[in-house]
């Protein structure tokens, strides 16, 4: 055995898993898949980028009219409400696109899952990453509006990653949880549409937190998205006439509950996905 070629060692084949096949392959595939998906949306049609903006912008115009003309949110009470609204729509759009797209992702990639040894986790995470790219592009417009409406530039804008990171982690965890569950229970996707809509209203997206009645406000803070959005409001639009997250919570309890839910969802996402990953191919 001295002069022969280098012979690879016999290694145990571990079977399918969430990451299977090494981390470098995992990240290469994740990157390729999300870039591909992103390209398809943006370069597939002539107006690709414009189209991706039309949806949040239309929503923005409609809601702006409703809240300034019908419900009369005054600019004295909530400074820069229009920019806040646009920013929130774009931010929540990322969460909604990431989770909503991920739910059915594993099911839609059936061919890949059943016929190749593909790291299963790449599939839902690629959806989130694609949503993140879109979000990045949309943020260019948001910053243009911020400057246009005379907000900032502020040094707290630099803290934005501190808001995005927990939101990204939360979105990924939900993407894992939902995509794995949807293989087993096909109605998870339908249920999630309803829950996501409820979350849209249960998070201060279209309304500022400060106009919510006290007790309801404390309840809203239990939703882990609320503290994230409220902090984003403070750092991105400005702290003037905006309550701190702690003040809105009215005490530590709602915040502890929110943190518990947050951690719970993250743990559940990782646990469920890891548990289901080896069997996903059989259940499709």
């Amino acid at each position, binding site marked *: 055995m001295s002069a022969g*070629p280098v*012979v*690879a*060692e*016999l*290694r*145990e*084949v*571990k*079977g*399918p898993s969430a990451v*299977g*096949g*090494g981390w*470098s*392959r995992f990240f*290469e*595939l994740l990157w*390729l*898949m999300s870039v*591909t998906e992103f390209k*398809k949306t943006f370069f*597939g049609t002539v107006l690709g980028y414009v189209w991706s903006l039309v949806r949040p912008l239309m929503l923005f115009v409609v809601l702006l009219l409703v809240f300034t003309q019908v419900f009369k949110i005054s600019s004295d009470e909530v400074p820069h409400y229009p920019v806040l609204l646009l920013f929130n729509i774009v931010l929540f759009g990322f969460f909604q696109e990431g989770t909503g797209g991920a739910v059915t992702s594993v099911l839609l990639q059936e*061919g*890949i*899952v*059943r*016929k*190749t*040894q*593909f790291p299963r986790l790449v599939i839902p995470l690629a959806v989130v990453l694609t949503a993140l790219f879109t979000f990045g592009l949309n943020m260019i417009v948001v910053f243009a509006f911020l400057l246009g409406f005379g907000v900032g530039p502020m040094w707290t804008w630099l803290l934005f990653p501190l808001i995005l990171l927990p939101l990204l982690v939360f979105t990924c965890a939900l993407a894992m949880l939902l995509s794995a569950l949807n293989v*087993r*229970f*096909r*109605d*998870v996707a339908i*249920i999630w549409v309803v829950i996501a809509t409820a979350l849209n209203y249960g998070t201060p997206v279209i309304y500022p937190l400060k106009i919510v009645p006290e007790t309801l406000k404390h309840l809203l803070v239990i939703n882990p998205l609320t503290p994230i959005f409220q902090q984003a409001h403070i750092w991105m639009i400005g702290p003037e006439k905006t309550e701190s997250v702690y003040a809105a919570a009215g005490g530590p309890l709602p915040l502890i509950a929110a943190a518990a839910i947050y951690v719970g969802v993250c743990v559940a996402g990782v646990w469920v996905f890891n548990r289901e990953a*080896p*069997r996903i*191919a*059989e259940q499709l």
Partner: protein
Amino acid sequence: MGVEKTFRIPTHRVDSLKERLTTFSQQDFRELHALRDVSFEVRRGEFFGIVGRNGSGKSTLLKILASIYAADAGRVRMAGRLAPFIELGVGFNNELTARENVELNGVMMGLSRRDARSRLGAVLEFAELEEFVDLKLKNYSSGMLVRLAFSVMIQSDAEILLIDEVLAVGDASFQQKCADVFYEIRDSDRTVVFVTHDMSAVEQYCHRAMLLHDGEVKSIGDSGEVARSYLRLNFEQAPGGEADMGGIADVTLDDVWLEDGEGKRIVNVERDTELRFGAGFEAHRAIEGPSFGFSFVNADGVEVAGFGIGLSGDVPDRLEPGQRVRLGGRIENRLAPGRYVVKCWVHRDHNYANLVLHSPQVLDFVVYGDATAGVVSLDHEVKARVEGS
């Protein structure tokens, strides 16, 4: 302990949360033992065939080797990088160009992105698709797709290849090219696990082979021997499993084959070409009014065509023990490209109720060529003309 795999197939599948929450009864499962104590060894550089009838566990085994399914018991060990594909063209994205797909597929095979890109030239050259590098795959013909897919797999440099019946694809010249590659791989360091129904391919390429039957290893060893035991297994099926119980069947089928227009035996058939069919029977007991029937069943289990015939010529309508029957003739080949199995039966008294032989799978073959819609291709003279011209 060998590799085991059992599927629990619910008699009623609960696949929604709603049902799960509203159904209180315990779920019933039927257990399907897809693999039972399967144990084998393939040496480096070996071309190893796995044969067996549909449902014998071949694909399950391949999926366990490829880490698509998890084994319930036993373990698999491998040395070297595996091309984790069991079917050609999986993972191709129709919206992307060949260039992008080759990169994506290469990465799925375990190459780095840079390596995958550097293979592009070789891949396209082998597939003879250089001119179409920036064409989206949705505009490729099925033949082009298969060529590209095969080429990606061959050029991936994986040390271990799992190949599930790919020979019968593409046109005749590409088939020849694949055959050349197979011979090359056969004599190289690369290891191949090859699943097929085509016994001549097994004898041609494989150093050794294994026969799976009902999830168990029936035989393993010399490829010629394994191919013969596969054929024997297919022919020796009497109704009600008489042969299994030690009884002698009234009639046995000793050979079945396909021929092309020139009378050459063939394994796979090009679409719309002349097809001839032959079979040999031997009677072991007297059979009054024998009829022989065959039908072609496609991959979806649909009986596409069939025929039944009695003895022809000026002979008594009965078979004596020891008499042999040779059946043969031309069949109009209208079968759409795809995989087919041939089902065979014999009954007495020209009565369908009196089966004396029934073999659900005496032959497998593939009709190759450009795909059509539907299960048959009809002769047609249909024209579209602009009105008024």
